[in-house]
């Protein structure tokens, strides 16, 4: 129990560091210094002390959105076996709960964006939803691969060592699923090949444009939720590829920390190496990610 609470606390505290690590890596690799690694902590602190401005056209949905987004992400964190064994909550089929908690958060975020009546936000919302439907496909392929390989329906069973058996996945299909999940992470967390967190042009934004009208603590909640989502997908990849039979808790927490920072560095490297895809090419990218995970499924089934 203690280990679960500790690992969840670690992820929740560490989360705002990851976008900073990614941005810093990108900066260093492209020959700039980049903002400090802990920039997001500073931003969150600054935003929490500010007042909120609500547009007169918005309704209660706009105020509800940040709270729901942050809440769903944190509840989703409880489902993941972050300590390598079992999540704080676990039940058969909690993968679906995980996927649709994130989807619920996105739904409210999109409603909030549309609620402002801004056409830019509407465009961002429509793109977000269109791409999310493909991300979901890939995610379920990945989960199905794990489910078939372990004959389990809960995230703790698939990823943790609940039954005491080592994961019977063959290496290659595991690698496919991990690569697919990493590609999905980039899309889900609005990173470069799909979306550019550093862009300043509303026309081309996806995620950024939807949170334009939020301010103060609301914006802080959204930024924090985004960082936690990043950390969750990162943890998913780390738990998937790091073997951990009989690793003591402290060592595991260290591994998780290093793994998460490693994911941040990897995202930064991808961001500095590739340009953002044209919007019409994004579905192909996401289909590629889904195909990777689906390939893993084919390998496991055959």
């Amino acid at each position, binding site marked *: 129990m203690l280990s679960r609470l500790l690992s969840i606390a670690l992820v929740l505290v560490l989360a705002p560091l990851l976008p900073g690590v990614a941005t810093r890596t990108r900066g260093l690799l492209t020959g700039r210094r980049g903002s400090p690694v802990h920039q997001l902590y500073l931003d969150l602190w600054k935003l929490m002390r500010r007042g909120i401005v609500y547009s007169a056209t918005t309704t209660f949905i706009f105020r509800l959105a940040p709270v729901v987004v942050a809440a769903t992400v944190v509840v989703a964190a409880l489902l993941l076996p972050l300590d390598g064994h079992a999540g704080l909550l676990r039940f058969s089929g909690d993968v679906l709960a995980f996927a649709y908690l994130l989807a619920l958060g996105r739904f409210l975020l999109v409603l909030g964006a549309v609620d402002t009546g801004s056409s830019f936000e509407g465009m961002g919302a429509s793109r977000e939803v269109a791409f999310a439907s493909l991300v979901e496909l890939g995610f379920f392929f990945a989960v199905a691969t794990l489910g078939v390989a372990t004959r389990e329906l809960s995230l703790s069973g698939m990823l943790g060592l609940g039954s005491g058996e080592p994961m019977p996945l063959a290496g290659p299909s595991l690698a496919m699923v991990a690569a697919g999940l990493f590609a999905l992470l980039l899309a889900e967390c609005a990173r470069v090949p799909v979306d550019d967190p550093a862009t300043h042009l509303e026309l081309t934004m996806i995620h950024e444009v939807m949170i334009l009208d939020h301010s103060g603590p609301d914006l802080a909640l959204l930024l924090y939720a985004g960082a936690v989502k990043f950390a969750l997908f990162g943890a998913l990849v780390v738990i998937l590829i790091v073997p951990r039979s009989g690793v003591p808790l402290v060592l595991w927490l260290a591994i998780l920390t290093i793994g998460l920072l490693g994911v941040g560095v990897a995202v930064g490297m991808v961001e500095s190496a590739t340009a953002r895809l044209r919007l019409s090419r994004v579905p*192909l990218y996401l289909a590629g990610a889904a195909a990777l995970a*689906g390939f893993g499924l084919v*390998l496991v089934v055959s």
Partner: protein
Amino acid sequence: MRSIAEILLLLVVLMDFAVLGTSRLSACIRAVAVQGVLLGSLSLALEGGLSLHAGVLAAGTIGVKAILLPWFLRWAIREASVRREVEPLVGYMASFLLGAAALVVSFAVAARLPSTGGTGLLVPVALVTVMIGLIVLITRTKALSQVLGYLMLENGIYLFGLTQARRVPFLVEAGVLLDVFVGVFVMGIVVFHINREFDSISALKLTELKES
């Protein structure tokens, strides 16, 4: 050695999909070249040790498929000054999905075939590569992409050949390599001349008659 061979085979499939998903011809050529390297190393990985037969086969495969032909094809796109496949008959997304379907079908079919040695992945991967080669050959309009499709098709057949690598005499394999080389060479020259004659290497225009 077996797990290395499996990873190589999976990379071969990923290269197939890379060709299906990219429009830039130079990137496609690079993917096919990487596939050539993978095939060459595969014959070593499957053999399990360094034998003269496997070594020469690997060197020949890498030399022809990863160095000579890509170099030649790069020369061809430079001469014809085409950079990308503009309008494939079937869109990238659709051909990607076709490829995914081919993947599932070939794994399903391969499970019913009698096993022939090598790893269990060899036959399905060979089937996928042949099918995706066919898809590229059929759906792309630039003559050069069609050459690439032909090369992938041949790579698939080579993979089938690897299941029998111990039994096929070296001379036959060398002959096949030579055939491929000559075939691609001729096609490259033809592409060059088509380009000079029609100012385009779209295969769709080959039905037009032109007197000069």
